[in-house]
Protein backbone atom coordinates (compact mmCIF):
# COMPACT_ATOMS: atom_id res chain seq x y z
CA UNK A 1 0.00 0.00 0.00
CA UNK A 2 2.82 2.32 0.97
CA UNK A 3 4.58 1.46 -2.26
CA UNK A 4 1.40 1.97 -4.27
CA UNK A 5 0.79 5.40 -2.76
CA UNK A 6 4.39 6.36 -3.41
CA UNK A 7 4.04 5.39 -7.05
CA UNK A 8 0.69 7.12 -7.30
CA UNK A 9 1.96 10.40 -5.89
CA UNK A 10 5.05 10.52 -8.06
CA UNK A 11 2.89 9.46 -11.04
CA UNK A 12 0.51 12.32 -10.31
CA UNK A 13 3.44 14.73 -10.00
CA UNK A 14 5.02 13.90 -13.34
CA UNK A 15 1.52 13.55 -14.82
CA UNK A 16 0.72 17.07 -13.67
CA UNK A 17 3.73 18.32 -15.64
CA UNK A 18 2.59 16.42 -18.73
CA UNK A 19 -0.90 17.77 -18.09
CA UNK A 20 0.23 21.39 -17.96
CA UNK A 21 2.07 21.07 -21.26
CA UNK A 22 -0.81 19.11 -22.75
CA UNK A 23 -3.14 21.96 -21.81
CA UNK A 24 -0.76 24.23 -23.70
CA UNK A 25 -1.30 22.14 -26.83
CA UNK A 26 -5.06 22.12 -26.34
CA UNK A 27 -5.41 25.88 -25.78
CA UNK A 28 -3.76 26.58 -29.13
CA UNK A 29 -5.56 23.81 -30.96
CA UNK A 30 -8.91 24.86 -29.59
CA UNK A 31 -8.67 28.45 -30.71
CA UNK A 32 -6.54 28.24 -33.85
CA UNK A 33 -7.04 24.67 -35.09
CA UNK A 34 -3.29 24.07 -35.09
CA UNK A 35 -1.03 21.62 -33.36
CA UNK A 36 1.97 23.55 -32.12
CA UNK A 37 4.90 21.21 -32.52
CA UNK A 38 7.15 23.74 -30.80
CA UNK A 39 5.25 23.42 -27.51
CA UNK A 40 7.97 21.36 -25.81
CA UNK A 41 10.66 23.76 -26.98
CA UNK A 42 8.73 26.81 -25.77
CA UNK A 43 8.36 25.06 -22.42
CA UNK A 44 12.10 24.48 -22.30
CA UNK A 45 12.91 28.11 -23.14
CA UNK A 46 10.70 29.32 -20.31
CA UNK A 47 12.40 26.95 -17.88
CA UNK A 48 15.84 28.20 -18.98
CA UNK A 49 14.75 31.80 -18.54
CA UNK A 50 13.54 30.94 -15.04
CA UNK A 51 16.94 29.43 -14.31
CA UNK A 52 18.73 32.52 -15.61
CA UNK A 53 16.56 34.72 -13.40
CA UNK A 54 17.31 32.51 -10.39
CA UNK A 55 21.06 32.69 -10.95
CA UNK A 56 21.39 36.33 -11.97
CA UNK A 57 18.51 38.31 -10.46
CA UNK A 58 17.24 36.50 -7.43
CA UNK A 59 16.56 32.98 -6.27
CA UNK A 60 13.43 34.09 -4.48
CA UNK A 61 10.59 31.84 -5.53
CA UNK A 62 8.20 34.72 -6.22
CA UNK A 63 10.71 36.64 -8.32
CA UNK A 64 11.43 33.54 -10.37
CA UNK A 65 7.75 32.67 -10.74
CA UNK A 66 6.66 36.14 -11.85
CA UNK A 67 9.69 36.56 -14.10
CA UNK A 68 9.06 33.21 -15.75
CA UNK A 69 5.37 33.95 -16.31
CA UNK A 70 6.12 37.33 -17.89
CA UNK A 71 8.81 35.78 -20.06
CA UNK A 72 6.42 33.03 -21.17
CA UNK A 73 3.73 35.57 -22.08
CA UNK A 74 6.24 37.53 -24.11
CA UNK A 75 7.53 34.41 -25.82
CA UNK A 76 4.00 33.36 -26.80
CA UNK A 77 3.09 36.83 -28.06
CA UNK A 78 6.28 37.19 -30.09
CA UNK A 79 5.89 33.80 -31.74
CA UNK A 80 2.25 34.51 -32.56
CA UNK A 81 3.00 37.94 -33.98
CA UNK A 82 6.21 37.21 -35.86
CA UNK A 83 5.80 33.62 -36.96
CA UNK A 84 2.17 32.55 -36.85
CA UNK A 85 0.20 35.63 -37.87
CA UNK A 86 1.79 35.88 -41.32
CA UNK A 87 0.70 32.26 -41.83
CA UNK A 88 -2.95 33.07 -41.16
CA UNK A 89 -5.11 31.73 -43.93
CA UNK A 90 -2.32 29.53 -45.31
CA UNK A 91 -2.95 25.79 -45.52
CA UNK A 92 -2.88 24.07 -42.14
CA UNK A 93 -0.18 21.71 -43.34
CA UNK A 94 2.17 24.58 -44.16
CA UNK A 95 1.44 26.26 -40.84
CA UNK A 96 2.12 23.10 -38.87
CA UNK A 97 5.41 22.71 -40.76
CA UNK A 98 6.28 26.21 -39.60
CA UNK A 99 5.83 25.15 -35.97
CA UNK A 100 8.13 22.18 -36.62
CA UNK A 101 10.75 24.54 -38.06
CA UNK A 102 10.30 26.82 -35.07
CA UNK A 103 10.87 23.84 -32.78
CA UNK A 104 14.24 23.11 -34.37
CA UNK A 105 15.28 26.75 -34.15
CA UNK A 106 14.29 27.06 -30.48
CA UNK A 107 16.07 23.81 -29.67
CA UNK A 108 19.36 25.04 -31.06
CA UNK A 109 18.81 28.46 -29.47
CA UNK A 110 19.37 26.74 -26.13
CA UNK A 111 22.94 25.87 -27.14
CA UNK A 112 23.60 29.36 -28.48
CA UNK A 113 22.15 31.31 -25.60
CA UNK A 114 22.86 28.92 -22.74
CA UNK A 115 24.91 25.75 -22.99
CA UNK A 116 24.62 22.03 -23.49
CA UNK A 117 25.10 21.02 -19.85
CA UNK A 118 22.45 20.04 -17.34
CA UNK A 119 21.65 22.51 -14.58
CA UNK A 120 19.55 22.46 -11.47
CA UNK A 121 16.95 25.12 -10.84
CA UNK A 122 17.11 26.12 -7.20
CA UNK A 123 14.57 28.47 -5.68
CA UNK A 124 15.28 27.39 -2.14
CA UNK A 125 12.30 25.09 -1.92
CA UNK A 126 10.64 22.16 -3.63
CA UNK A 127 13.18 19.52 -2.73
CA UNK A 128 12.37 19.11 0.96
CA UNK A 129 10.54 15.97 1.91
CA UNK A 130 7.26 16.18 3.80
CA UNK A 131 5.48 13.18 5.25
CA UNK A 132 1.95 12.66 4.05
CA UNK A 133 0.12 9.74 5.68
CA UNK A 134 3.29 7.80 6.22
CA UNK A 135 4.91 8.39 2.83
CA UNK A 136 7.58 10.88 1.97
CA UNK A 137 6.73 13.39 -0.73
CA UNK A 138 8.76 16.26 -2.07
CA UNK A 139 7.15 19.66 -1.64
CA UNK A 140 7.74 20.38 -5.34
CA UNK A 141 5.60 17.37 -6.18
CA UNK A 142 2.79 18.57 -3.95
CA UNK A 143 3.10 22.04 -5.43
CA UNK A 144 2.86 20.90 -9.06
CA UNK A 145 -0.20 18.77 -8.39
CA UNK A 146 -1.83 21.66 -6.53
CA UNK A 147 -0.90 24.05 -9.33
CA UNK A 148 -2.43 21.80 -11.98
CA UNK A 149 -5.66 21.44 -10.00
CA UNK A 150 -5.83 25.19 -9.38
CA UNK A 151 -5.23 25.94 -13.05
CA UNK A 152 -7.86 23.40 -14.09
CA UNK A 153 -10.40 25.22 -11.93
CA UNK A 154 -9.23 28.66 -13.06
CA UNK A 155 -9.34 27.75 -16.74
CA UNK A 156 -12.76 26.18 -16.37
CA UNK A 157 -14.02 29.43 -14.85
CA UNK A 158 -12.23 31.50 -17.48
CA UNK A 159 -13.87 29.69 -20.40
CA UNK A 160 -17.23 29.78 -18.73
CA UNK A 161 -17.50 33.21 -17.19
CA UNK A 162 -15.12 35.65 -18.86
CA UNK A 163 -16.16 37.41 -22.04
CA UNK A 164 -12.86 36.73 -23.77
CA UNK A 165 -12.99 33.09 -22.63
CA UNK A 166 -16.43 32.66 -24.17
CA UNK A 167 -15.10 34.42 -27.28
CA UNK A 168 -12.31 31.84 -27.52
CA UNK A 169 -14.94 29.10 -27.50
CA UNK A 170 -16.96 30.98 -30.10
CA UNK A 171 -13.91 31.28 -32.36
CA UNK A 172 -13.23 27.58 -31.87
CA UNK A 173 -16.84 26.72 -32.73
CA UNK A 174 -17.09 28.91 -35.83
CA UNK A 175 -14.36 31.43 -36.50
CA UNK A 176 -16.04 33.01 -39.52
CA UNK A 177 -19.23 33.76 -37.66
CA UNK A 178 -17.19 35.05 -34.74
CA UNK A 179 -15.65 37.48 -37.20
CA UNK A 180 -19.15 38.59 -38.23
CA UNK A 181 -19.85 39.47 -34.60
CA UNK A 182 -16.75 41.66 -34.49
CA UNK A 183 -14.64 39.20 -32.52
CA UNK A 184 -11.10 39.78 -33.66
CA UNK A 185 -9.53 36.40 -34.33
CA UNK A 186 -6.02 37.82 -34.10
CA UNK A 187 -6.60 39.00 -30.55
CA UNK A 188 -8.00 35.65 -29.59
CA UNK A 189 -5.07 33.88 -31.22
CA UNK A 190 -2.54 36.13 -29.49
CA UNK A 191 -4.21 35.43 -26.17
CA UNK A 192 -4.19 31.70 -26.88
CA UNK A 193 -0.46 31.68 -27.65
CA UNK A 194 0.35 33.69 -24.55
CA UNK A 195 -1.85 31.53 -22.31
CA UNK A 196 -0.53 28.31 -23.80
CA UNK A 197 3.05 29.45 -23.34
CA UNK A 198 2.43 30.32 -19.69
CA UNK A 199 0.56 27.13 -18.79
CA UNK A 200 3.14 24.89 -20.44
CA UNK A 201 5.98 27.05 -19.12
CA UNK A 202 4.79 26.50 -15.56
CA UNK A 203 5.04 22.77 -16.24
CA UNK A 204 8.58 23.24 -17.54
CA UNK A 205 9.68 25.22 -14.49
CA UNK A 206 8.31 22.54 -12.18
CA UNK A 207 10.14 19.90 -14.17
CA UNK A 208 13.39 21.81 -13.84
CA UNK A 209 12.72 22.18 -10.14
CA UNK A 210 12.04 18.50 -9.46
CA UNK A 211 14.39 16.90 -12.00
CA UNK A 212 16.89 18.85 -14.03
CA UNK A 213 17.27 21.40 -16.75
CA UNK A 214 18.94 20.23 -19.95
CA UNK A 215 18.68 20.74 -23.69
CA UNK A 216 16.82 17.41 -23.84
CA UNK A 217 13.88 18.88 -21.98
CA UNK A 218 11.94 19.57 -25.17
CA UNK A 219 11.12 15.85 -25.13
CA UNK A 220 8.51 16.69 -22.53
CA UNK A 221 6.48 17.88 -25.49
CA UNK A 222 6.61 14.40 -26.94
CA UNK A 223 5.26 13.06 -23.64
CA UNK A 224 2.59 15.70 -23.34
CA UNK A 225 1.27 15.42 -26.86
CA UNK A 226 -0.09 11.91 -26.32
CA UNK A 227 -1.69 13.22 -23.13
CA UNK A 228 -3.60 15.83 -25.07
CA UNK A 229 -4.65 13.27 -27.68
CA UNK A 230 -5.84 11.07 -24.84
CA UNK A 231 -7.80 13.83 -23.11
CA UNK A 232 -9.02 15.35 -26.36
CA UNK A 233 -7.07 17.75 -28.53
CA UNK A 234 -9.84 20.31 -28.25
CA UNK A 235 -10.44 19.69 -24.55
CA UNK A 236 -8.26 21.92 -22.41
CA UNK A 237 -9.34 20.45 -19.09
CA UNK A 238 -9.41 16.96 -20.58
CA UNK A 239 -5.79 17.37 -21.65
CA UNK A 240 -4.79 18.22 -18.10
CA UNK A 241 -6.51 15.09 -16.86
CA UNK A 242 -4.98 13.11 -19.74
CA UNK A 243 -1.56 14.11 -18.43
CA UNK A 244 -2.40 12.83 -14.94
CA UNK A 245 -3.65 9.53 -16.36
CA UNK A 246 -0.50 8.98 -18.38
CA UNK A 247 1.73 9.90 -15.46
CA UNK A 248 -0.03 7.44 -13.14
CA UNK A 249 -0.16 4.64 -15.71
CA UNK A 250 3.52 4.99 -16.53
CA UNK A 251 4.56 4.97 -12.91
CA UNK A 252 2.40 2.06 -11.84
CA UNK A 253 3.47 -0.02 -14.82
CA UNK A 254 7.10 0.87 -14.22
CA UNK A 255 6.80 0.04 -10.52
CA UNK A 256 4.80 -3.17 -10.68
CA UNK A 257 5.62 -4.70 -14.06
CA UNK A 258 9.03 -3.62 -15.22
CA UNK A 259 10.83 -0.40 -15.91
CA UNK A 260 10.67 -1.26 -19.60
CA UNK A 261 6.89 -1.15 -19.35
CA UNK A 262 7.05 2.46 -18.19
CA UNK A 263 7.47 3.82 -21.71
CA UNK A 264 5.01 1.42 -23.26
CA UNK A 265 2.14 1.52 -20.79
CA UNK A 266 1.09 5.07 -21.52
CA UNK A 267 0.90 4.41 -25.23
CA UNK A 268 -0.92 1.12 -24.74
CA UNK A 269 -3.56 2.97 -22.78
CA UNK A 270 -3.80 5.63 -25.49
CA UNK A 271 -4.30 3.07 -28.22
CA UNK A 272 -7.06 1.33 -26.30
CA UNK A 273 -8.81 4.59 -25.42
CA UNK A 274 -8.62 5.97 -28.95
CA UNK A 275 -10.17 2.77 -30.29
CA UNK A 276 -13.18 3.43 -28.09
CA UNK A 277 -13.18 7.24 -28.25
CA UNK A 278 -11.34 8.42 -31.35
CA UNK A 279 -11.48 12.08 -30.31
CA UNK A 280 -10.09 11.45 -26.85
CA UNK A 281 -11.86 10.95 -23.55
CA UNK A 282 -13.18 14.51 -23.38
CA UNK A 283 -12.80 15.54 -27.02
CA UNK A 284 -15.75 16.69 -29.05
CA UNK A 285 -14.56 17.82 -32.38
CA UNK A 286 -13.55 16.05 -35.48
CA UNK A 287 -9.80 16.33 -35.25
CA UNK A 288 -9.09 15.51 -38.86
CA UNK A 289 -8.68 19.24 -39.44
CA UNK A 290 -5.10 18.91 -38.20
Amino acid at each position, binding site marked *: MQYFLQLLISGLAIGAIYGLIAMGFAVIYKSTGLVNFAQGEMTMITAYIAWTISTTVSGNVFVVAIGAILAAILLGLIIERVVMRPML*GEPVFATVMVTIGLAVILRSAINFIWDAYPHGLDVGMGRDIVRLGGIGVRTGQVAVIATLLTLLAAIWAFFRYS*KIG*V*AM*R*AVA*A*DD*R*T*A*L*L*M*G*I*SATRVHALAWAASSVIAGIGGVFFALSYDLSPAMFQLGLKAFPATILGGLDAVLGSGIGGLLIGITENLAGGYVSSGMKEVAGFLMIIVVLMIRPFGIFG*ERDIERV
Partner: protein
Amino acid sequence: MPTTIPIPRPSAAPQPTAAPDSLLEFRNIRVVYDNAIEAVRDVSIAVPEGGIVALLGSNGAGKSTLLKAMSGILYTEEGVIESGSIRFRGEDVHHLAPDELVRRGIVQVPEGRRVFASLTIEENLQMGGYTRSNAAARERRDKVFALFPRLHERRDQIAGYMSGGEQQMLAIGRALMTDPKLLALDEPSLGLAPLIIDRIYEVIVRLRDELKMTVLLVEQNAQRALDIADYGYILETGRVVLDGTARKLAANEDVQEFYLGVSSSGRKSLRDVKHYKRRKRWLS
Protein backbone atom coordinates in the same frame (compact mmCIF):
# COMPACT_ATOMS: atom_id res chain seq x y z
CA MET B 1 -24.25 31.32 -70.95
CA PRO B 2 -26.44 33.64 -73.05
CA THR B 3 -24.82 36.14 -75.38
CA THR B 4 -23.44 39.14 -73.65
CA ILE B 5 -25.16 41.95 -75.46
CA PRO B 6 -25.53 44.68 -72.85
CA ILE B 7 -29.09 44.83 -71.73
CA PRO B 8 -30.42 48.33 -71.17
CA ARG B 9 -31.95 48.71 -67.78
CA PRO B 10 -34.41 51.58 -67.61
CA SER B 11 -34.53 51.72 -63.85
CA ALA B 12 -30.77 51.58 -63.48
CA ALA B 13 -30.21 55.09 -64.71
CA PRO B 14 -30.91 57.07 -61.54
CA GLN B 15 -29.14 54.53 -59.42
CA PRO B 16 -25.39 55.20 -59.65
CA THR B 17 -25.97 58.84 -58.79
CA ALA B 18 -27.47 57.39 -55.63
CA ALA B 19 -29.74 59.26 -53.38
CA PRO B 20 -27.73 60.91 -50.57
CA ASP B 21 -30.00 59.32 -47.97
CA SER B 22 -28.75 55.83 -48.77
CA LEU B 23 -27.42 54.27 -45.60
CA LEU B 24 -25.57 51.55 -47.47
CA GLU B 25 -24.54 51.54 -51.07
CA PHE B 26 -22.77 49.04 -53.29
CA ARG B 27 -21.23 50.90 -56.22
CA ASN B 28 -20.25 48.95 -59.32
CA ILE B 29 -18.95 46.12 -57.17
CA ARG B 30 -17.06 43.27 -58.77
CA VAL B 31 -16.01 40.28 -56.67
CA VAL B 32 -13.66 37.52 -57.73
CA TYR B 33 -12.88 34.33 -55.83
CA ASP B 34 -9.56 32.50 -56.17
CA ASN B 35 -8.43 34.97 -58.85
CA ALA B 36 -10.71 33.13 -61.23
CA ILE B 37 -14.37 32.90 -60.35
CA GLU B 38 -16.24 36.11 -60.97
CA ALA B 39 -19.16 35.86 -58.55
CA VAL B 40 -20.45 39.44 -58.72
CA ARG B 41 -19.92 41.82 -61.64
CA ASP B 42 -20.68 45.49 -61.65
CA VAL B 43 -23.48 45.46 -59.12
CA SER B 44 -24.91 48.69 -57.73
CA ILE B 45 -27.43 48.54 -54.93
CA ALA B 46 -28.69 51.29 -52.66
CA VAL B 47 -30.27 50.68 -49.27
CA PRO B 48 -32.07 53.78 -48.05
CA GLU B 49 -32.22 54.52 -44.35
CA GLY B 50 -35.19 53.09 -42.52
CA GLY B 51 -36.35 50.80 -45.30
CA ILE B 52 -36.36 47.15 -46.18
CA VAL B 53 -34.59 46.32 -49.40
CA ALA B 54 -35.03 42.82 -50.81
CA LEU B 55 -32.20 41.20 -52.70
CA LEU B 56 -33.61 38.28 -54.67
CA GLY B 57 -32.09 35.63 -56.86
CA SER B 58 -31.69 31.92 -57.21
CA ASN B 59 -28.81 29.68 -56.17
CA GLY B 60 -25.39 31.01 -57.00
CA ALA B 61 -26.63 34.44 -58.06
CA GLY B 62 -24.10 36.18 -55.81
CA LYS B 63 -26.33 37.30 -52.96
CA SER B 64 -24.24 35.92 -50.15
CA THR B 65 -21.10 37.15 -51.87
CA LEU B 66 -22.41 40.71 -51.66
CA LEU B 67 -23.09 40.29 -47.95
CA LYS B 68 -19.63 38.83 -47.36
CA ALA B 69 -18.17 41.84 -49.14
CA MET B 70 -20.29 44.10 -46.95
CA SER B 71 -19.01 42.41 -43.77
CA GLY B 72 -15.39 42.38 -44.89
CA ILE B 73 -15.00 38.61 -44.69
CA LEU B 74 -14.35 37.81 -48.35
CA TYR B 75 -10.68 37.31 -47.56
CA THR B 76 -11.51 34.21 -45.50
CA GLU B 77 -12.58 32.56 -48.76
CA GLU B 78 -9.90 33.92 -51.07
CA GLY B 79 -12.35 36.48 -52.41
CA VAL B 80 -11.51 40.09 -53.27
CA ILE B 81 -13.38 43.17 -54.37
CA GLU B 82 -11.71 43.75 -57.71
CA SER B 83 -13.36 47.06 -58.36
CA GLY B 84 -16.12 49.30 -57.11
CA SER B 85 -16.84 50.45 -53.60
CA ILE B 86 -19.14 49.97 -50.65
CA ARG B 87 -20.26 53.09 -48.88
CA PHE B 88 -21.89 53.36 -45.49
CA ARG B 89 -23.24 56.72 -44.35
CA GLY B 90 -21.35 58.33 -47.20
CA GLU B 91 -17.97 56.80 -46.36
CA ASP B 92 -16.02 54.09 -48.15
CA VAL B 93 -15.98 51.05 -45.90
CA HIS B 94 -14.93 48.15 -48.10
CA HIS B 95 -11.35 48.26 -46.82
CA LEU B 96 -12.34 48.04 -43.14
CA ALA B 97 -11.80 45.02 -40.92
CA PRO B 98 -14.87 42.99 -39.91
CA ASP B 99 -14.81 44.15 -36.30
CA GLU B 100 -14.62 47.80 -37.34
CA LEU B 101 -17.63 47.30 -39.62
CA VAL B 102 -19.57 45.82 -36.72
CA ARG B 103 -18.59 48.77 -34.52
CA ARG B 104 -19.90 51.14 -37.17
CA GLY B 105 -23.26 49.38 -37.18
CA ILE B 106 -23.20 46.90 -40.06
CA VAL B 107 -24.11 43.34 -39.21
CA GLN B 108 -25.47 40.29 -40.95
CA VAL B 109 -27.34 37.18 -39.95
CA PRO B 110 -25.47 34.65 -42.05
CA GLU B 111 -26.97 32.04 -44.29
CA GLY B 112 -27.81 28.88 -42.38
CA ARG B 113 -28.07 30.86 -39.08
CA ARG B 114 -24.70 29.65 -37.79
CA VAL B 115 -25.39 29.92 -34.10
CA PHE B 116 -22.43 28.93 -31.95
CA ALA B 117 -23.72 25.42 -31.41
CA SER B 118 -21.69 24.55 -28.32
CA LEU B 119 -22.49 27.81 -26.53
CA THR B 120 -25.64 28.54 -24.55
CA ILE B 121 -28.23 30.98 -25.84
CA GLU B 122 -27.10 33.57 -23.37
CA GLU B 123 -23.46 33.12 -24.40
CA ASN B 124 -24.41 33.43 -28.07
CA LEU B 125 -26.06 36.74 -27.28
CA GLN B 126 -23.07 37.81 -25.23
CA MET B 127 -20.89 37.21 -28.29
CA GLY B 128 -23.20 39.42 -30.33
CA GLY B 129 -22.47 42.16 -27.82
CA TYR B 130 -18.73 41.52 -27.94
CA THR B 131 -17.88 44.94 -29.38
CA ARG B 132 -20.11 46.77 -26.90
CA SER B 133 -19.53 47.59 -23.25
CA ASN B 134 -20.90 45.14 -20.71
CA ALA B 135 -23.55 47.59 -19.55
CA ALA B 136 -24.70 48.34 -23.10
CA ALA B 137 -24.75 44.63 -23.91
CA ARG B 138 -26.93 43.86 -20.89
CA GLU B 139 -29.37 46.52 -21.97
CA ARG B 140 -29.48 45.18 -25.51
CA ARG B 141 -29.95 41.67 -24.20
CA ASP B 142 -33.07 42.69 -22.31
CA LYS B 143 -34.45 44.20 -25.52
CA VAL B 144 -33.69 41.03 -27.44
CA PHE B 145 -35.38 38.94 -24.76
CA ALA B 146 -38.42 41.23 -25.00
CA LEU B 147 -38.50 40.69 -28.75
CA PHE B 148 -38.00 36.92 -28.45
CA PRO B 149 -39.42 35.73 -25.11
CA ARG B 150 -38.62 32.19 -26.22
CA LEU B 151 -34.90 32.93 -26.01
CA HIS B 152 -35.34 34.15 -22.47
CA GLU B 153 -37.10 30.95 -21.45
CA ARG B 154 -34.24 28.86 -22.76
CA ARG B 155 -31.35 31.15 -22.03
CA ASP B 156 -29.19 28.47 -20.40
CA GLN B 157 -29.78 25.87 -23.07
CA ILE B 158 -27.09 24.82 -25.55
CA ALA B 159 -27.87 26.56 -28.85
CA GLY B 160 -27.12 23.50 -30.97
CA TYR B 161 -30.09 21.65 -29.50
CA MET B 162 -32.67 24.26 -30.47
CA SER B 163 -35.09 23.93 -33.38
CA GLY B 164 -34.35 25.65 -36.68
CA GLY B 165 -36.84 28.43 -35.99
CA GLU B 166 -35.41 29.07 -32.55
CA GLN B 167 -31.91 29.11 -33.97
CA GLN B 168 -33.00 31.69 -36.55
CA MET B 169 -34.43 33.85 -33.76
CA LEU B 170 -31.20 33.46 -31.83
CA ALA B 171 -29.13 34.37 -34.89
CA ILE B 172 -31.24 37.52 -35.36
CA GLY B 173 -31.08 38.31 -31.65
CA ARG B 174 -27.32 37.83 -31.66
CA ALA B 175 -26.98 40.25 -34.59
CA LEU B 176 -29.22 42.79 -32.81
CA MET B 177 -26.87 42.62 -29.84
CA THR B 178 -24.28 44.46 -31.93
CA ASP B 179 -26.63 47.47 -31.90
CA PRO B 180 -26.70 47.71 -35.70
CA LYS B 181 -27.91 50.48 -37.95
CA LEU B 182 -28.03 48.13 -40.87
CA LEU B 183 -29.15 44.55 -40.45
CA ALA B 184 -28.66 42.18 -43.36
CA LEU B 185 -30.39 38.81 -43.29
CA ASP B 186 -29.22 36.02 -45.59
CA GLU B 187 -32.17 33.77 -46.42
CA PRO B 188 -33.83 33.85 -43.00
CA SER B 189 -36.71 31.65 -44.20
CA LEU B 190 -34.46 28.85 -45.42
CA GLY B 191 -35.71 25.46 -44.28
CA LEU B 192 -38.36 26.79 -41.92
CA ALA B 193 -42.05 25.95 -41.67
CA PRO B 194 -44.45 28.62 -43.03
CA LEU B 195 -45.75 29.45 -39.57
CA ILE B 196 -42.24 30.05 -38.27
CA ILE B 197 -41.43 32.17 -41.31
CA ASP B 198 -44.45 34.32 -40.44
CA ARG B 199 -43.01 34.92 -36.99
CA ILE B 200 -39.59 35.81 -38.32
CA TYR B 201 -41.06 38.20 -40.88
CA GLU B 202 -43.24 39.86 -38.26
CA VAL B 203 -40.11 40.58 -36.30
CA ILE B 204 -38.32 42.01 -39.35
CA VAL B 205 -41.21 44.40 -39.94
CA ARG B 206 -41.18 45.42 -36.30
CA LEU B 207 -37.46 46.12 -36.51
CA ARG B 208 -38.10 48.59 -39.30
CA ASP B 209 -41.24 50.15 -37.89
CA GLU B 210 -40.50 50.26 -34.19
CA LEU B 211 -36.71 50.33 -34.00
CA LYS B 212 -36.21 52.33 -37.22
CA MET B 213 -33.71 49.79 -38.39
CA THR B 214 -32.57 49.53 -41.99
CA VAL B 215 -32.83 46.02 -43.40
CA LEU B 216 -31.21 44.32 -46.36
CA LEU B 217 -33.18 41.13 -46.85
CA VAL B 218 -31.64 38.41 -49.02
CA GLU B 219 -34.10 35.77 -50.11
CA GLN B 220 -34.91 33.14 -52.67
CA ASN B 221 -38.42 33.30 -51.31
CA ALA B 222 -39.42 36.32 -53.40
CA GLN B 223 -43.09 36.27 -52.43
CA ARG B 224 -42.44 36.73 -48.76
CA ALA B 225 -39.68 39.23 -49.19
CA LEU B 226 -41.60 41.46 -51.60
CA ASP B 227 -44.56 41.41 -49.23
CA ILE B 228 -42.65 43.39 -46.63
CA ALA B 229 -39.92 45.11 -48.64
CA ASP B 230 -40.01 48.66 -49.93
CA TYR B 231 -37.67 48.11 -52.81
CA GLY B 232 -36.14 45.09 -54.48
CA TYR B 233 -33.28 43.96 -56.68
CA ILE B 234 -33.11 40.78 -58.68
CA LEU B 235 -29.68 39.29 -59.09
CA GLU B 236 -28.71 36.68 -61.64
CA THR B 237 -25.27 35.20 -62.25
CA GLY B 238 -23.67 38.12 -60.51
CA ARG B 239 -25.64 40.94 -62.15
CA VAL B 240 -28.65 42.99 -61.22
CA VAL B 241 -31.16 42.14 -63.92
CA LEU B 242 -34.13 43.98 -62.52
CA ASP B 243 -34.95 46.38 -59.75
CA GLY B 244 -37.85 48.50 -58.66
CA THR B 245 -40.29 49.13 -55.86
CA ALA B 246 -41.50 45.95 -54.21
CA ARG B 247 -44.99 46.55 -55.57
CA LYS B 248 -43.72 46.99 -59.09
CA LEU B 249 -41.56 43.90 -58.90
CA ALA B 250 -44.36 41.79 -57.48
CA ALA B 251 -46.52 42.88 -60.42
CA ASN B 252 -43.84 42.19 -63.00
CA GLU B 253 -44.72 39.37 -65.38
CA ASP B 254 -41.26 37.78 -65.40
CA VAL B 255 -40.92 37.95 -61.66
CA GLN B 256 -44.36 36.40 -61.27
CA GLU B 257 -43.51 33.68 -63.69
CA PHE B 258 -40.12 32.77 -62.33
CA TYR B 259 -40.01 33.80 -58.69
CA LEU B 260 -43.56 33.91 -57.43
CA GLY B 261 -46.01 31.07 -57.21
CA VAL B 262 -43.53 28.56 -58.49
CA SER B 263 -42.74 25.68 -56.17
CA SER B 264 -39.12 25.74 -55.12
CA SER B 265 -38.46 22.38 -56.76
CA GLY B 266 -39.74 23.62 -60.07
CA ARG B 267 -38.03 26.98 -59.88
CA LYS B 268 -36.66 28.17 -63.17
CA SER B 269 -34.65 31.23 -63.84
CA LEU B 270 -35.00 34.38 -65.85
CA ARG B 271 -31.98 33.03 -67.64
CA ASP B 272 -34.14 30.33 -69.18
CA VAL B 273 -36.29 32.80 -71.02
CA LYS B 274 -35.20 33.31 -74.58
CA HIS B 275 -32.97 36.26 -74.85
CA TYR B 276 -35.11 38.28 -77.26
CA LYS B 277 -38.05 37.83 -74.98
CA ARG B 278 -36.15 39.14 -71.98
CA ARG B 279 -34.91 42.10 -73.88
CA LYS B 280 -38.33 42.94 -75.16
CA ARG B 281 -39.82 42.82 -71.70
CA TRP B 282 -37.23 45.02 -70.09
CA LEU B 283 -37.55 47.56 -72.80
CA SER B 284 -41.30 47.69 -72.55
